[in-house]
């Protein structure tokens, strides 16, 4: 079991309010990702759940029990740190088994479970090495091993993959997702990589300046962003925003269209402009178009489109894919 509920959780460091009232329901067994720009409070929120920081106000429930006064050691959660935080003086075996030793399990049981975890993570050959004798990826796996072996109520991950190179990151991303599904343990995962967020999450929490901007499935955030911030943050390349009279035509203060929802043609109805940069990736073509008074628009075409800088094009939004926002930036849903 690992159901986590946050009720109006707040955190201030001195006079500075970092978390300004977070409400969340995290279902047992789900994979929830916290995303947001740097400094928005993702790590702080995770540490509040872990108990490594005390809440200034609000309640945190784990399986129905308010844990704000419970020390981290007693919350039954495990955490994977960005820095791995392995015990430098212990072997891999000692690192993975430390939590079990603290729980007072018999030696044979510890050894059995450590070896099982090591086997899952391909760490068996390294069990007797010290952390400094491992590569970054191996250290990362030890940190994950240490988290899974205790069979906690939930895993907390703080940007665990950010120190790995791109290829290893993709591989570990898949590995972590697979492991979490297989174990069925609740996971909260902090990242600022939105590809990680979109691919790994059952549900995403978008944080901005200490507030939860939206909480939903990856596709909900993509298709129905609650406001300008979420619309701009989720999706790559970024959504195009148009304001002024061109937006007023749609009855909104601002309208947004994703690059992949702009039809590209040589002529016809729409927003005419000149290509300033054309990027050909083979699988995709990205066009950056100067559309005069409307501003610069980004358009994406799946496949190869033989256009070059200087060519004139007309971009027309797919009518059903236009997002409308009011003057406060909130979505006007129809």
């Amino acid at each position, binding site marked *: 079991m690992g159901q986590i509920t946050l009720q109006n959780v707040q955190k201030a460091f001195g006079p500075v309010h970092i978390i300004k009232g977070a409400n969340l329901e995290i279902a047992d067994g789900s994979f929830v990702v916290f995303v947001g720009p740097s400094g928005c409070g993702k790590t702080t929120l995770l540490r509040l759940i872990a108990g490594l920081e005390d809440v200034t106000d609000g309640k945190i429930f784990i399986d129905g029990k308010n844990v704000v006064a419970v020390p981290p050691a007693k919350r039954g959660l495990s955490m994977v740190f960005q820095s791995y*935080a392995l015990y430098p003086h212990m072997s891999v075996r000692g690192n993975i088994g430390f939590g079990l030793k*603290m729980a007072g399990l018999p030696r044979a049981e510890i050894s059995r479970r450590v070896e099982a975890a090591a086997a899952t993570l391909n760490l068996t050959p390294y069990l007797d090495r010290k952390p400094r004798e491992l590569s970054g990826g191996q250290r990362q796996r030890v940190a994950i091993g240490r988290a899974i072996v205790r069979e906690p109520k939930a895993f907390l991950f703080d940007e665990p993959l950010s120190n790995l190179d791109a290829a290893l990151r993709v591989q570990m991303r898949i590995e972590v997702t697979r492991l979490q599904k297989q174990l069925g343990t609740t996971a909260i995962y902090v990242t600022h990589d939105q590809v990680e967020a979109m691919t790994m999450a059952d549900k995403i929490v978008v944080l901005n300046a200490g507030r939860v901007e939206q909480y939903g499935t990856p596709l909900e955030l993509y298709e129905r962003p609650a406001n300008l911030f979420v619309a701009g943050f989720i999706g790559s390349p970024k959504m195009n925003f148009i304001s002024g009279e061109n937006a007023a035509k749609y009855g909104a203060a601002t309208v947004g269209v994703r690059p992949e929802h702009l039809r590209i043609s040589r002529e016809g109805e729409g927003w005419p402009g000149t290509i300033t940069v054309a990027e050909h990736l083979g699988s995709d073509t990205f066009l950056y178009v100067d559309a005069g008074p409307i501003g610069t628009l980004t358009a994406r075409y799946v496949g190869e489109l033989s256009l070059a800088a200087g060519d004139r094009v007309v971009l027309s939004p797919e009518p059903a894919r236009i997002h409308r926002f009011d003057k406060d930036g909130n979505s006007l849903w129809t």
Partner: protein
Amino acid sequence: MARMPTRRRIALSTIAAWLVGFLIFFPILWMVLASFKTELEAFAIPPSFLFFDWTLENYVTVQGRSDYLHHAFNSVVVAGGSTLIALLIAIPAAWSMAFSPTKRTKDVLLWMLSTKMMPAVGVLVPIYLIYRDFGLLDSLTGLVIILCLGNLPIVVWMLFTYFKEIPRDILEAARMDGATIGRELIYVLTPMAVPGLASTLLLNLILAWNEAFWTLNLSTLQAAPLTVFIASYSSPEGLFWAKLSAASTLAIAPILVLGWFSQRQLVRGLTFGAVK
């Protein structure tokens, strides 16, 4: 252009390093050699290096004239006692400053160091008077107190820098792993802090062993450690190089042996943090 470590360059720097090492060591070697010479040979010019009549006569005279063991015992008590007490006070102090610093922590550290910036002789008279009135002159207690207080700022600084290097994350990981404060201390903190503690202990032992200003001024015979024993041979009746050398050799021998066996630990301690 990248500087390639050619064989020639390695040979040159090896020779240079040995040369510097020898230069630094030479005075000590000379002292040891002089302690085996007769008084006449000891200041003969030109000096003889190895080819003289080796004699133990100085050691015999020194042992006959003063009680080496008495002073050595005092040195052990004063150096060991002051270092241990300093550690006992400094560990919790450095600990709290490293792990739960406040806005004033840096100021406190600097203030402690500032007490080392004044020459000790500046407070000699007040300290002497205080010691006289409290009956601490020429007592082991008095020496332990003054050396402990004198070295305390350095001990706190050293420990503070070691503790600072212990990543907080690791302590938090232990907490997440279900370790209580006590077990976190035993299984995680202590093993990581031991190298730092050991080198602080060693360095302070050496500093306290060699401390001469306070020991010379505050003790005469009863509590006098080896520094006083050496000084008694540079007397106004004339210099006796060979006997002075013998006394000095005897005085530094224990600490030299300790230093030799702990050199790894010492070097690690002194360069800690500089090389990652």
